[in-house]
């Protein structure tokens, strides 16, 4: 077996007196797309925040490409190759689309390549090209999500983590986002996708992690998870 890109063991985390994550174990292989599902408050965002360094890991280990990144700064983790597209997009509203994308490339200094990547993002999301000088805060929800994802990719990550991809978006928009994500993935980018809509999540990824009250409940190929009666009942609204 090849060495995993990301390896998380016995991770715990939380806020102040509140512990949210209780001993999380999972890994992500190079080029793999994994989804993270679970009900509201299960700790999905908390897990992403801990991985990206916004929250300290209390115990446990996070290895990325063989190196420990637990409790590193967000800056360090980003330059190691993990980018976090946060819940709610969190664009810089008064800044233009272009400036938002350039901010995503803040740690890079290869100007020519940054220009090239900008053009590539405009190709991936043509609507952003039309809106390049518009203030990001005035974009529609779908456009904002595209801008947020593009901003994340501008850092040239190895692992793209997206929190709540489809929240509040029309099915058609979600489809085109999914299409774009598939294209990015084909270029070798690994993905960790947090998604409320389990059907969408299972379509876009090959392996899934079901989180329940801060613990990993099931982990396995999405093809199996979608057949699992417990998953169907609890998260897919079936039966």
């Amino acid at each position, binding site marked *: 077996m090849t060495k995993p890109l990301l390896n998380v063991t016995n991770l715990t985390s939380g806020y102040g007196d509140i512990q949210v994550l209780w001993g999380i174990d999972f890994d992500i292989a190079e080029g793999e797309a994994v989804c993270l599902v679970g009900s509201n408050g299960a700790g999905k965002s908390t897990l992403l925040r801990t991985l*990206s360094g*916004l929250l300290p890991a209390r115990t446990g280990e996070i290895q990325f490409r063989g190196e420990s990144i637990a409790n590193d*700064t*967000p*800056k360090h983790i*980003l*330059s190691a190759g993990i*980018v*976090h597209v*946060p819940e709610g997009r*969190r*664009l*810089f*509203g*008064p*800044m233009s689309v272009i*400036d938002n994308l*350039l*901010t*995503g490339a*803040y*740690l890079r200094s290869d100007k020519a390549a940054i220009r090239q990547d900008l053009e590539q993002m405009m190709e991936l999301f043509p609507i952003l090209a039309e809106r390049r000088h518009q203030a990001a805060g005035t974009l529609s929800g779908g456009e904002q999500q595209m801008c947020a994802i593009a*901003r994340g990719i501008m*850092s040239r990550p190895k692992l793209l983590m997206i929190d709540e991809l489809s929240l509040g978006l029309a099915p058609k928009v979600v489809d085109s986002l999914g299409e774009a994500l598939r294209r990015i993935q084909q270029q070798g980018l690994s993905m960790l996708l947090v998604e409320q809509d389990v059907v969408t999540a299972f379509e876009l990824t090959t392996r899934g992690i079901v989180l329940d009250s801060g613990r990993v409940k099931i982990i396995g190929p999405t093809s199996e998870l979608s057949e699992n009666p417990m998953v169907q009942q609890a998260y897919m609204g079936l039966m």
Partner: protein
Amino acid sequence: MIFFQYLVNGLILGGLYACIATGFSLVWGVLSIINILHGSFIVLGAYIGIFSYTMLGIHPFVSVITAGIVLGALGYVVQLGIINRVVAQSVLVTLILTFGLELMMNNAMLVAFTADYRKVILEKSLGVLEIGNVFIAMDRAVATVIAFVLIFLLWLLMRLTSIGRAIVAVRFDREAASLMGIDVKKTYAITFALGGAMAGAAGSLMSVSFPISPLSGPLFLSKAFVICILGGVGSVPGAALGGLIFGMLESFGAVFFGAEYALTLAFIVLIILLLVRPHGLLGVKGF
């Protein structure tokens, strides 16, 4: 016509006022700090202008560079070492902190420089230009031009550089900015340094026009405060516009109501503006 004379006076004052307000406005907008220390930074910049001239013969317009660098460095250290410890707390906490620092600075300057008013008396003045019936004191006019150039440079920095983008990013979403790899505390310090540099530069420019004592700080501060709100907190072009308006108010206000009412008049205009446009003339923009 006398009207044009007042207009020119207002313009010349306005440029200097714009320069004292931009740094203050930037710091307020980005860090949510009402920096009471800003007045002292201006005064200190003026002393750099004055002593560089009297002791070394360096023209205050050249000392703009030294004053900018020295006050910028001081601002950086003060933010990184002291203010960053409380920066996430309420406006009141940071206000009290900068107020305390201002008191200390004021007293230190009183001890070091005495309370005497000083001003640069240029040996080789550029003189007065007369166009029709309008008189233009050229030293002041050049100071104003330099002030606008500095403001323009700051605007370019905010608009075109990655530091500028980082400052705006931190202003609008600290956490998202740190997800972009931006070091928030360092960016705060850089912002504060830019504010200090603008204050120092403005001080050196003003040393040619206004007599200055260690106690001039609060007066400059109150003007910067009004201008900043007039133009829109955090906005560089807003501060420039606000400065010009303030200069005009002072120039024309002095004619109609007497010089002592200039600040009162400005505050009245400010109150009216706040009723009509609570976010200032240019509103909330990136910078």
